[in-house]
């Protein structure tokens, strides 16, 4: 199945993005397709390449980038929410792209299932 995911919270403060990542990875392992993950609200902060967690912690941003590269997951960051929070093309991690809210609706239309993670 084609599964779309919406993430409404940023990294580290909330478990939402961890849950979403582990869910996405499990879905891919089961042979499903995670075509697009849409980052909204503080979720846009998951895309900052300036993120530097301590060595012994998981690197949430790199984890998403790697998933995108290996499994062609489209990581879309909402432009309006991103600009509000200082996320621009120049500080975007690999695999992420900035686009409009239409990409969220489109993903909802094209996915067989849609799951929201947030607070």
């Amino acid at each position, binding site marked *: 199945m084609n599964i779309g995911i919406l993430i*409404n919270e940023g990294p580290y403060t909330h478990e939402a993005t961890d849950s979403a990542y582990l869910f996405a990875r499990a879905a891919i392992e089961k042979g499903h397709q995670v075509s697009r993950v849409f980052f909204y*609200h503080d979720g846009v902060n998951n895309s900052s390449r300036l993120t530097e967690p301590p060595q012994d912690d998981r690197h949430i941003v790199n984890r998403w980038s790697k998933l995108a590269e290996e499994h062609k997951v489209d990581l879309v960051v909402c432009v309006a929410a991103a600009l509000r929070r200082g996320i621009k093309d120049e500080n975007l991690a690999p695999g992420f792209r900035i686009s409009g*809210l239409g990409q*969220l*609706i489109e993903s909802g*239309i*094209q996915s067989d299932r*849609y799951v929201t993670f947030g607070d």
Partner: protein
Amino acid sequence: MSEGQIKKFMYVNRKAPHGTIYALESLEVVLIAAAFDQDVSLAFMDDGVYQLKKGCNTKGIEVKNFQPTYRALDDYDINKLYVEKEALEARGLTEEDMCVPVEVLTRAEIGKLMETQDIVLSF
């Protein structure tokens, strides 16, 4: 997007305005959704009913007042606004306190409608 495909989208709003940004940014999604010619409905539950409490004046907190946008939804053909009966009652509110025409439904009734949706997005 796939041409002509109409899905039923329900947006579930359960958070009060101003304390957090969810209400405003959710409204932005709904406005964009209108351009996609999908079947759109909005459910206001729990503290989400406060989003529609009329008379919001945000001058003093220096935040944009987005309440007029709810009144503009009808211009975008978004007119299925459901408000949870139990949530109104628990907050001392009535339908007359709402800034736009709404349909007041019980949680169970909203639950039935939810079952008929293709996509439920919650903020």
